[in-house]
């Protein structure tokens, strides 16, 4: 069963609908004890980095997620859920993320482009060199150069700067875009990633 982590950060309905459309069994979990019973987890999220990090810490979900990963159980981070896997974000300089990877998220802002980066953009998946189109809504990004080493695959997108759009390393995958809002191609991505093959 997939544990869909509800940490009070955004609406889970879209993701639930997508998992149901894919015929996947999930359970919405909000406490650290619930996560221990899940073979895999999804860390979703739209919202504020600092508030989310604080909520994870206060509820003890941060420790549960680290144990989940230490036991090599699969986890997919989506949007803010991807950002939380790293050290931190300029959105909330005083808040620590889960620190699974080094790197801090930066604000789109020096580019003169509209913020947030909202809408459809193209993602280049490597090493397969495949392109997919995906729906993004975010104001902070990880520069492509800060991609964690040793990824099985990674995806990059450009919005004034090249940034990390998705990656998988070991049993941990993440995407900055919203696969549950990225049409049939997004659902396909979600199914592939969650098969952990």
């Amino acid at each position, binding site marked *: 069963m997939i544990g869909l982590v509800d940490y009070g950060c*955004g*609406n889970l*309905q*879209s993701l639930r*609908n*997508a998992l*149901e*459309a894919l015929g996947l069994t999930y359970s919405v979990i909000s406490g650290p004890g619930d996560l221990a019973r899940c073979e895999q987890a999804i860390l979703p999220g*739209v*919202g*504020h980095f600092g508030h989310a990090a604080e909520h994870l810490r206060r509820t003890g979900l941060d420790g549960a997620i680290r144990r989940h990963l230490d036991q090599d159980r699969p986890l997919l981070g989506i949007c803010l859920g991807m950002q939380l896997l790293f050290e931190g974000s300029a959105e909330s300089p005083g808040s620590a993320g889960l620190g699974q990877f080094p790197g801090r998220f930066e604000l789109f802002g020096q580019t003169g482009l*509209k*913020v*947030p*980066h*909202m*809408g*459809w*953009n*193209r993602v280049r998946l490597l090493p397969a060199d495949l392109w997919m*189109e995906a*729906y993004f*809504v975010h104001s902070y990004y990880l520069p492509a150069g800060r991609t964690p080493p040793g990824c099985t695959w990674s995806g990059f997108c*450009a*919005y004034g700067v090249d940034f990390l759009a998705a990656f998988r390393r070991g049993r941990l995958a993440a995407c900055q875009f919203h696969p*549950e*809002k*990225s*049409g*049939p191609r*997004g*659902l396909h991505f979600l199914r592939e990633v969650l098969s952990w093959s």
Partner: protein
Amino acid sequence: MVLKRIIPCLDVKDGRVVKGVHFERLRDGGDPVELAGRYYRDGADELVFLDITAGLERRRTVLPLVERTAREVFIPLTVGGGVRTVADARELLLAGCDKVAVNSAAVRRPGLLADLAGQFGRQCVVLAVDVLPVDGGYRVVVDAGRTVTPLRLEDWLLQAQALGAGEILLTSIATDGARAGYDLASITAAAAHCRVPLIASGGLGTAGHVLEACRAGADAVLAASVFHYGAWTVASLKQFLKNEGLEVRA
């Protein structure tokens, strides 16, 4: 490079799709969920429901509609019409939409934008602005086209964005439903004051109109009649745009 979005709009009344010309002479356009599914499969980048059901019936008809649509359409869904409070917006978001659109209620109480952005994040807050040309400029119109306010388009856009509007949906009543092209002057005027994405609405009749709107500064175009009754499908429109060199989703 963000791709230009094509957004079919479904005006919904009492659970059915309707569409008028210049906001009047409504006619039946079918079942909203069925149409939403068709547009999704056809390559729509996003969908908008504008609920124009009056009074207490509204909640009873629109929420199940949003729930059903969200279960089969996996692109962003915006719902608007009669949203006056944070509680109205929360109901719609929990039913499965991704953004809510506000119009008249925000003009009457601009603080609503700040309340919504504070609760749900500005990416959830779409400001719908209806305009008419008055004295060489554009004035904001509320109450589904019935009340012309003294508010200038440019002033309202700046205020609304400062408060929390995350996206602007601009409809020119003068061109709405006529399928004779977007009101390009209103798009140009709005684009100069938008730091958030701008969706142009009102007047799409043929594919060339999309190119004009994008050149005038629109990030996305919204259309209803042309997809419900017109000669273009979302897919054929996108094919044309791609051939013309516009960056759209395949």
